[in-house]
């Protein structure tokens, strides 16, 4: 009996054939593999957030296996001696167990927390890139709005997670959150008692935050992230202007294999950096804070950095309380409810506002350099300054203490700075943009400065310029500006030979001198 030989080599092709028979994937798969992606380092900022989110899901799942969001009162008997026999909630006890009694639990907790900070940091930096390059313009307005929602969802998700361990610092934050909810006109007290199921802190808030933190918000985040990335794929990534790049094409690399390899490598780097930070830098040492008790507080109480701007706005707010007809609008309402509301609504409509102001209805797949839109860049600089003043004010007591400045002076500096610095930033950024534009056009018209000074017969000194293109008799060129970087240095033009490559020893032989040069060398 002849045994049929099983051909291993034919296995992949046979499998692929079988799959395609059933699902007809060949065409979409190939177009996916061949998809072209433009390459610029700032396009990787959003990916940091995406990768951090994946790491958050991984580490968070691990933490959820050990954490119990219970406010039931227990007496600690774990291995951290300074808290032995202390009354605490079960949530805080399990957080301590995670830190001290679960092997590797502490590094998981710390990686999770660092990943949360990185997630928000990458979102903010990515958002700034999108804003300053005009990537939010038609047809990408919806993705800008989704990105903005992702920031606020990440903010809420982070705050909910920060509150879960029920340590004294997070409890202080929760208490402030309850004050913020209370301050909402008309319904504040109703919303507060409904949220906490009675008076603060009640007995159920952690369980509610837990389901928010591990299920509802991650679900929404995951959905929106999928849509966000999906829209990038469907609409194709925007690109910077440059040779061969038009509004109607994408210039870059095919997705597979090189680009995806780079993505995979970058994911590992993000993961690696978070592992390093999780192991080497201590974050949120809850065992030092102790359990949350209503009478306990520490000087230098701050929220995580991405909430700090709202803490700063709360600190800077003057004591303006509106009281009329027996009703009160507390001072805390304006910086913590109205301000975030404005910071959501205004950016959300910004793409449409800008299009209206610029009378711009076109499609934009080419990005703009920040210098080419001075008003937008100025506005962005003002916005970032506003945000930074608030964020620094959120830590103004630490700054006051460590740099020996009066706390009251820091508050006043923040109040004044919040009003004065953003307009100043707008003005300065706009002037810088205009100056850079001017320089670009000068170089296009006259050429690159060579650094060679020439003495003219009439005694004048001039610097010799290297024109970028043929010039007329006055030395003026006609090169148009196309929105791409203009070479400003001689070695950008290839006027200097490229450096020899190799770290310890050259990996390329320097080119042998040309025969003509050799003759010169020999004759001299």
């Amino acid at each position, binding site marked *: 009996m002849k045994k049929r030989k099983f051909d291993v080599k034919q296995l992949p092709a046979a499998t692929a054939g079988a799959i395609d028979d059933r699902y007809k994937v060949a065409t979409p798969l190939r177009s996916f593999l061949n998809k072209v992606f433009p390459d610029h380092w700032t396009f990787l900022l959003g990916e940091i957030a995406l990768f951090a989110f994946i790491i958050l899901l991984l580490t968070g799942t691990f933490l959820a296996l050990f954490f119990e969001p219970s406010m039931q009162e227990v007496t600690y008997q774990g291995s951290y001696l300074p808290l032995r026999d202390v009354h605490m909630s079960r949530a805080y006890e399990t957080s301590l167990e995670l830190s001290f009694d679960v092997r590797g639990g502490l590094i998981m907790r710390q990686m999770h927390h660092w990943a949360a*900070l990185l997630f928000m940091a990458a979102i903010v930096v990515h958002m700034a890139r999108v804003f300053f390059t005009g990537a939010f313009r038609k047809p990408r307005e919806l993705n800008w709005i989704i990105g903005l929602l992702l920031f606020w969802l990440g903010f809420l998700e982070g705050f909910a997670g920060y509150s879960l361990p029920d340590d004294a610092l997070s409890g202080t934050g929760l208490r402030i959150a309850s004050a913020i909810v209370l301050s909402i006109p008309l319904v504040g007290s109703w919303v507060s008692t409904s949220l906490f199921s009675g008076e603060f802190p009640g007995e159920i808030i952690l369980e509610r935050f837990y389901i928010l933190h591990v299920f509802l918000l991650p679900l929404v985040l995951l959905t929106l992230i999928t849509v966000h990335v999906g829209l990038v794929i469907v609409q194709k990534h925007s690109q910077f202007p440059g040779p061969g790049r038009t509004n109607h094409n994408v210039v870059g690399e095919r997705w597979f294999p090189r680009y995806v390899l780079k993505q995979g490598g*970058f994911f590992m780097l993000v993961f690696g950096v978070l592992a390093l*930070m999780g192991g080497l830098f201590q974050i949120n040492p809850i065992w030092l804070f102790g359990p949350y008790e209503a*009478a306990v507080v520490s*000087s230098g109480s701050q929220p*995580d950095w991405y909430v700090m701007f709202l803490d700063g706005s709360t600190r800077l707010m003057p004591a303006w309380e509106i009281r009329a007809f027996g009703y009160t609008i507390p001072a805390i309402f304006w910086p913590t409810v109205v301000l975030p509301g404005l910071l959501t609504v205004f950016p959300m409509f910004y793409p449409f506002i800008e299009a209206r102001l610029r009378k711009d209805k076109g499609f934009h797949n080419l990005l703009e350099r920040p210098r080419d839109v001075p008003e937008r860049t100025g506005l962005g600089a003002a916005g970032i300054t506003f945000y930074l003043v608030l964020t620094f004010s959120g830590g103004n007591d*630490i700054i006051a203490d460590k740099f020996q400045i009066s706390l009251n002076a820091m508050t006043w500096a923040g109040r004044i700075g919040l009003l004065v610095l953003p307009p100043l930033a707008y003005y300065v950024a706009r002037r810088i943009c205009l100056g850079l534009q001017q320089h670009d056009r000068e170089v296009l018209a006259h050429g690159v400065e060579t650094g060679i000074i020439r003495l003219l017969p009439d005694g004048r000194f001039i610097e010799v310029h290297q024109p970028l293109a043929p010039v007329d008799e006055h030395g003026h060129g006609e090169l148009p500006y196309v929105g791409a970087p203009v070479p400003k240095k001689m070695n950008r033009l290839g006027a200097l030979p490229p450096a020899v490559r190799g770290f310890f020893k050259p990996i390329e032989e320097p080119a042998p001198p040309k025969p003509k040069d050799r003759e010169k060398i020999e004759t001299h």
Partner: protein
Amino acid sequence: MVAHSPRRPRSRARRRAIAALRMLAALVLAGGIYALVSPNAQANAPGQLSAAAQEGRALYETSCISCHANNGQGVEGRGPSLIGVGSAAVEFQVETGRMPAAAQGAQLERKPPQFNSDEARQLGQYIQELGGGPEIAFQGEQAPKGDIAHGGELFRVNCSSCHAFSAAGGALSSGKFAPSLEPSTDRQLYAAMLTGPQNMPVFGDNQMSPQDKYDVIAYVQNLKSDTDPGGWGLGRFGPVTEGVAIFLFGMVLLAFAALWIAGKS
């Protein structure tokens, strides 16, 4: 003994010699003196000062008298009366270098002390015998053993609001501050709780028994000596330095990585 000026070596040598002599005298007399002085020491007439107090008086009359006047009566607008402040307050102020004060400011700061601890105790003894007042309840440098966990509870309710969870200190109103407890010794911690220097509230023995204070001291010293289990503690300042770290380390590193990844070479 701390040198004021390295340019005067002779004077320093002489001072060292004097200090050594004083230390010797103090060591010889120490046991007897502490036995003689009961905790409820009454104000003795200047003529009946103990030997240590007489040493202290000599120091007082060279370094303190210009602000606090003769016999610790105090000078209006310059230095308060020291009658009844007790030896604990004197020891704290002198040992942490706050006294003699360099200048009158918003708050006296810790600086290198001008007197060594024996001299500080002699000064304290003198003031104690002048007008009585609170004294440190233990001899020697180490406080008796305390319960760390109980100390932690007391610390969180009473101390962390100003000195922070990490005992690294914090800002108070208008330029005042609660100092870091990093350099504080057992005796200084005890004296500070007992006497409430400057804006610090007083935690008298009725409120916080000596044993309670030992518990707090045990907690603080443990807090300081316990190595962080999670890596470098970033100064234990909390979310501010953590936020700085994520940008200066995490984001900067990854931005450079992105630059390299997308780079042409």
